[in-house]
């Protein structure tokens, strides 16, 4: 494993005005090239983990942070579940929206345009380049927002339920992109209830409960509550359990 990009050492974070911590005594490291699936019940702290990891909390949203957090990420990118809140509101075309990040890097105009087009193509939405973002469907907009995050070539990509607005094929395509992003040297953290899809691409999984890390390890040992794993468990399959439908079918076929 390469040097950690992120290092949490006994980090406790409280939202402004909250008595209970949203993250409690979290200690873990994330290296470049890893894809970490963050799971847990709603309110477990996965979104807060992303905000703290990206340096957005407490810097932008307030609250208090205890412990030591070291981040070597120079270009964190974050995508939330609701894409319409992530539009800049300043751009009339999808291309301009995606180019917003690269445009802040002071690159020449042609390089900014090329970065935006490349990113749109990666998400399969280059044909939307001249559309007004306000006229897109939720699924199209979600892909555009992910493209906007990728256009900046992030070294830390934080995804909060990124497939919430996508159809199954779109969600599959989005998750299929992540190994490429990680292979290019970024660390990817995905907070998602869609553990079946996360299990296909994650190199590691972290389960949170009440803001605490309760499990951290290989997806096969942490993401054991997928529908496929439950079926396999009830059928008496030995470990490691198959985590998705394809793996389950393959196991049964054997």
């Amino acid at each position, binding site marked *: 494993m390469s040097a950690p990009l992120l290092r949490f050492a006994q980090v406790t974070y409280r939202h402004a005005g909250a008595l209970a911590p949203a993250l409690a005594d979290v200690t873990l490291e994330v290296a470049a090239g890893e894809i970490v699936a963050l799971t847990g019940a709603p309110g477990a702290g996965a979104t807060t983990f992303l*905000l703290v990891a*990206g340096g*957005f909390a407490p810097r*932008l*949203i307030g609250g208090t942070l205890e412990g030591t957090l070291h981040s070597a990420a120079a270009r*964190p*990118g*974050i995508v*939330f579940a*609701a894409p*319409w*809140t*992530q*539009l*800049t*509101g*300043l*751009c*009339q*075309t999808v*291309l*301009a929206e995606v*180019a*917003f*990040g*690269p*445009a*802040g*890097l*002071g*690159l*020449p*105009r042609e390089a*900014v*345009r090329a970065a935006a087009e490349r990113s749109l193509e990666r998400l399969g939405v280059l044909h939307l380049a001249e559309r007004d973002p*306000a006229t897109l469907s939720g699924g199209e907009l979600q892909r555009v*927002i992910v493209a*906007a*995050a990728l256009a*900046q070539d992030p070294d830390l990509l934080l995804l909060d339920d990124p497939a919430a607005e996508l159809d199954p094929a779109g969600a599959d395509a989005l998750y299929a992109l992540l190994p490429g992003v990680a292979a290019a040297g970024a660390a990817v953290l995905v907070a998602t209830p869609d553990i079946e899809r996360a299990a296909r691409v994650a190199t590691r999984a972290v389960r949170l409960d009440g803001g605490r890390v309760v499990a951290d390890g290989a997806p096969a040992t942490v993401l054991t509550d997928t529908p496929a794993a439950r079926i396999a468990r009830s059928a008496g399959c030995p470990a490691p359990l198959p985590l998705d439908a394809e793996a389950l079918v393959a196991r049964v076929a054997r």
Partner: protein
Amino acid sequence: MIGYRPGDSPLHRAHPYTPLALAVSLLLAVFALGSPGAVGAAVLAAVILAAAGGVLGYTARPAFVIGFTTWVLLLVLHGLLGPGPFLAAGPLSLSARGLHRALVLGGRLTTILVAFLTVLAVVSPARLVDAMTERGVAFAKMYLLVSTLTLVPRLRARAAQILEAQQCRGLRLGGSPLARVAALGPLVLPLVLGALAEVDEQVLALDARGAGRAGRRTALDPPADSALQRTVRWAALLVAAALFVAKVAERAQ
């Protein structure tokens, strides 16, 4: 309707600073003018500006809706309660100086309303962003200006969505005035709370996309400018400034 209306008029095609400079010039000039006739000319200039942008009909309604109450108030307050001499108007006796004052103030308001509603209608926020980015305006200032310009259309779109959702859930909009006022609650509360909640995520998203980075941003598609437009802008601003200086000098005498 308030907000940008796509079009192909000379004002739509102009550099965004040009209609802005013309509107600001009218604003300065109309405050320097003191007679109803001169203010009337400024109103006419604002109307010509709107017509040149092909948005006269588009700006007339909001200008009327916003300005009508003020006009009535000005005429009643200054016309009926102003100092003598008085003019007979049927059963009423109206103050000549009060009417003069009401016409000047009302004309100023109308000029400003028509000029700036025209700017909102003909200046694309995206082109304005590109124009300001090209000039190296700081992102925070640019965002403040453009988000203010686009506030009304954004709130209107959101209010329409909330209204449809609440109607689907049984909200009835008709009935007595009291029932109509009561129906405002389910509209206004989600509108305000939703806007506040979204601001948090938008701040994070903008920050993550480098909005706060130091250094000059690259304009993706900067609007074309020309020597003629620059001359028109400076000439309009200089005329307005000259009128203002003349007014100050006149008062000093």
